[in-house]
């Protein structure tokens, strides 16, 4: 719930990372508290909203999932447009996904805005025995690129809330501005007489 008198920040958050790294699972864990062992590739829902209340602000997240468009590198520029935060995800048990995460960060730096809050997420921390990417390696890359690093597991829920709280906190400091635009779904409040004119 929004606290009264608190400033409200509406922020677009985009998820990036290769197929199968658990992007959708992270969001479902955060938004709905759910986890499915065999989460289907993203279909049907790729847009979530969630509100986080902090001391200093209430952050309303519009979370965009890739909808599978990352598969053949066909994510549209629109995806990055106006994003206030980006979460780049890789799988700790797959070196390849970490190498690809670096490419996604490059893409973000090219397409996203300059004061974007960026997180590098090492997901599937429950797969520790088959880990292929060291914590130090991830931390170092994150630091070099102005991101914060966190290891999560959508399966066990480890660090999921911490991830989004950290982003919210950073957004509350940066306080991104939103363009003032219209809502197309709004019907006319006071219908102006059609041919008012020519009286």
């Amino acid at each position, binding site marked *: 719930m929004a606290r009264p008198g608190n400033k409200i920040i509406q922020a677009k958050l985009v998820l990036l990372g290769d197929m199968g790294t658990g992007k959708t699972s992270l969001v479902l864990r955060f938004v709905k508290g759910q986890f499915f062992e065999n989460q289907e590739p993203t279909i*049907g829902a790729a847009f979530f909203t969630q509100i986080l209340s902090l001391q200093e602000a209430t952050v309303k997240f519009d979370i965009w999932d890739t909808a599978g468009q990352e598969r053949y590198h066909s994510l549209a520029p629109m995806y990055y447009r106006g994003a206030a935060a980006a979460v780049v995800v890789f799988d700790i048990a797959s070196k390849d996904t970490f190498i690809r995460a670096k490419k996604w960060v490059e893409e973000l730096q090219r397409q996203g805005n300059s004061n974007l809050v960026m997180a590098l997420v090492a997901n599937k921390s429950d797969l520790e025995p088959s880990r292929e990417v060291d914590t130090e390696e991830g931390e170092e890359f994150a630091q070099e690129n102005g991101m914060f690093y966190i290891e999560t597991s959508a399966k066990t829920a480890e660090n999921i809330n911490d991830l989004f709280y950290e982003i919210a906190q950073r957004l509350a400091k940066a306080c991104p501005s939103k*363009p003032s635009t219209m809502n197309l779904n709004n019907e*006319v409040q006071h219908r102006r007489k059609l041919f008012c004119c020519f*009286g």
Partner: protein
Amino acid sequence: MDEEYDVIVLGTGLKECILSGLLSVDGLKVLHMDRNDYYGGESTSLNLIQLWRRFRGNDKPPAHLGSSRDYNVDMIPKFMMANGTLVRVLIHTDVTKYLYFKAVDGSYVFNKGKVHKVPATDMEALKSPLMGIFEKRRARKFFIYVQDYDEKDPKTHEGLDLTRVTTRELIAKYGLDDNTVDFIGHALALHRDDRYLNEPALDTVKRMKLYAESLARFQGGSPYIYPLYGLGELPQAFARLSAVYGGTYMLNKPECKVEFNEEGKVIGVTSEGETARCKKVVCDPSYLPNKVRKVGRVARAIAIMSHPIPNTNDSHSVQVILPQKQLGRKSDMYLFCCSYSHNVAPKGKFIAFVSTEAETDHPETELKPGIDLLGPVDEIFFDVYDRYEPVNEPSLDNCFISTSYDATTHFESTVMDVLNMYTLITGKVLDLSVDLSAASAAEE
């Protein structure tokens, strides 16, 4: 790629992307490909580097214009009627949540050598020099008839069958002069030429109602709205809809050769040596050049400026209609202007377009009356492109080809083509009264 799809869509122009989205939502298995490495095809918006590459070959854009990525220059400039069918399609599919819109500041009309605002309020109408005081009273009676006219309620028809009575005959009843008729036909009903005068009046009456309803909807200074970052956002948003419902996207696919069997029916599409099989192909004219014919040409100029169009009350987004009669032409000319206020250019910069159905081979000469209204420009580009329409029989070859974008100022004809194609492809009529977001919310 080596799979069987219900539909393969070629080209990511607005029409193809809307169809791809609608078909995926229907549960069809869709593969969507484009030969370009960007979305939008002919209806894309270009940044500065892409714009220079297209029109200036190896030259580089000058530094004083600012950063390339701050520019989103539409290749098919149009505005959206606030109460038009595109808005209804956006709401129906809930694609609105991916886009930001702002009203267009003003709509103007060129009359007797001057630019005048098309009145949007009582006060503007009262002051408008477009009509004399007595003519305004006569026009008012006609507007009230149009406003009250309800197709389903014969009482409002005043004994006239508008499917038979021509626009000329209807207007004659109100004794309006030619100047007013020109204003009504071109600035309100948005006809491109004068054929409407001899056609049944119903179409003109409906167009006037659309104009008035659009003007009323968001209380803006014009009946138009326009997306932040340019029209190129629209195909991307519908592509996302398609992807969300399982559509597969591949850009930068060379060739995209449509394959047929002995009976001439489509069986798949080949790119880079791989063939994806399918039952139907949906595409823009460029992917099946021997199943379309040329029906016209559009001449246009694109200008980058550091000021709004003069005499438009400092409007940062505006349309000016130059009716054909005012110019001694066969079809109208249009000016569009958008700016940093819609995030299509960096602070202080304006993008203006002049476009018309080409009547000669010399766009520079032909577009001069429109260009003269722009004032000084930083840069200007000229172009003529061909318009095509399909000549195939979709029931025989299972190819569904869209018609090229016309020079109209808005998207009504664009969406009509899409809805007709949707019906041809699926055998269903799209019910735009259903709000998909409400439907999916109910499912949860």
